[in-house]
């Protein structure tokens, strides 16, 4: 079970129009990335938290757990950005190595903190989308952007098949575990590769079976289905667009210290 997917379907914001949600989420994301301002990041972080947890009714603990996922990457790369390697004598030297020094400067520290906060805020924007808008709705929005039909078809199919294979894969892992297949590292590697191999075989068999049943319903190369989503309600979309733009302008004029990028 993929938890983000589950939260998206159980969110109180699920039924809101996907166009406006996407507009708002992506709009805020762009503001985060463009401004790189600590204050803006903090504000957006709080707005998204409020939307997802207070209005969307996602459990706070689950949300916290989600926030931990990108931490590994964030911490490692931010440390890399903050600390410099070289021969500069004037900087605040932390460690001296044979060939040079590892040091940080005020500028690199500021940049690191900015980067950390703004990335974290952008992640909350992504989460806002991910846990309030089911994937099916998102694909629907992409469809109305006139992406090539084949891309849309593939997205729908891959989304469905992910869960089909995930179920099989998980079941196989559990069955292996029941027979002590993950008792130590060596066994684990063997079990994992066997699982990967058999999952591939199963994927192939499933594709065959599904094709057969699709043919029996008259599939002849053109995958046509109807969807339930309603057209964007124009007023709602305009309101969301206005809010996002306003946010952007406020950030730009009052807080914006747009870095030269």
């Amino acid at each position, binding site marked *: 079970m993929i938890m983000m997917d589950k939260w998206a379907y159980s969110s109180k914001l699920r039924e809101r129009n996907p166009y406006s949600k996407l507009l708002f989420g992506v709009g805020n994301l762009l503001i985060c990335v463009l401004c790189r301002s600590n204050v803006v990041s903090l504000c957006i972080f709080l707005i998204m938290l409020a939307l997802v947890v207070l209005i969307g009714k996602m459990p706070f603990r689950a949300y916290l757990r989600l926030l931990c996922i990108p931490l590994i990457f964030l911490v490692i790369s931010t440390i890399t950005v903050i600390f410099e390697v070289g021969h500069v004598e004037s900087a605040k030297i932390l460690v001296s190595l044979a060939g040079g020094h590892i040091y940080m400067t005020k500028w690199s520290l500021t940049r690191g903190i900015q980067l950390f906060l703004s990335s974290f805020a952008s992640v909350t924007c992504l989460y806002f989308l991910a846990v309030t808008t089911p994937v099916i709705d998102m694909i629907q929005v992409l469809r109305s952007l006139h992406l090539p039909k084949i891309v849309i078809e593939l997205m729908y199919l891959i989304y469905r098949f992910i869960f089909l294979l995930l179920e099989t894969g998980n079941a196989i892992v559990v069955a292996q575990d029941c027979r002590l297949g993950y008792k130590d590292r060596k066994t684990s590697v063997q079990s994992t590769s066997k699982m990967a191999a058999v999952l591939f075989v199963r994927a192939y068999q499933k594709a065959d*079976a599904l094709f*057969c049943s699709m043919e*029996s319903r008259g599939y002849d190369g053109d995958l046509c289905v109807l969807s339930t989503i309603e057209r964007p309600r124009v007023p709602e979309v305009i309101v969301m667009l206005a809010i996002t733009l306003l946010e952007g302008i406020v950030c730009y004029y009052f807080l914006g210290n747009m870095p030269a990028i």
Partner: protein
Amino acid sequence: MKELKDYKGGHALRTFNLLDEQYHKPVCDMHGDTMIEIKNLNYQYEDGTVALQNVNLTINKGEKIAIMGPNGSGKSTLFLCLNGVYKPTNGSIQVNGEPVTYNRNGLKKLRQIIGIVFQNPDNQLFSADVFQEISFGPMNLGLEKEVVRERVESVLESLHIQHLKKRPTHFLSGGQKKQVAIADILAMKPEVILFDEPTAALDSYHSQLVNDLVDELCEAGITVIQATHDSDYAMAWADRIIVIQDGKVLVKDTPQKVFENVELRKKAYLEEPNVLKMYNCLCKANIIEQTNNPICPKSIDELIKGLE
């Protein structure tokens, strides 16, 4: 499972308004006309395995047919032949008096008349959500979008699963998946529906639901062919039983005659239905009077009713 509690109520009448429009002929009229005629059908897989051998069958309109036989005996192959997914190596299939043609139009026509509900819904449902899934068949028939929308809504209503409309397929339970798989086919308004072990792996609640649904379809005049392993069920439900083994039709006859045949039962690994056992025992013990042409009740329930 709240939604389903309503189901067993007085809905039966309302349920097949969708189908009644189409099949407005009274049932009795239809019975007897030949729906499908299979002559000398042979099917051989690419690898040379012979899956069907000299199959001859006539299926009448509105008939209830159970196909029995061990796994791998050729039932699924027969279904896929009937639906035009497999092209027979030899022999011919006539549907509604016309031979099946294997060009695009011929197949489209065939698939509108005959639909298959596959055994494992996970091998049938390919769409991300229920509405899309059910709309696939009707869209392939080339109907207008509005017509398709209406059909899907109407099928959802008939099966009392409107609440599933926007549900993503992967959130459905096994029983719900089965219902959607059936809706898939009903939305194409076929005249014949082939069910491949529709209640396998379902719990008794959903099995009952599916069995009731099948009964309603039959009442609405649809020809239903079911592959099943359940002797009790086949005895109770079927007009005729076709026993297949190793790709050959062993026998096609009424349930009682099929199950009374001890040799056949042994050969095709058919269990004797409980009701038949009981009936024979009661006859022997002279609790039930035996006439010259004894007709066994169809189920234990019927037998009990008779005794009372």
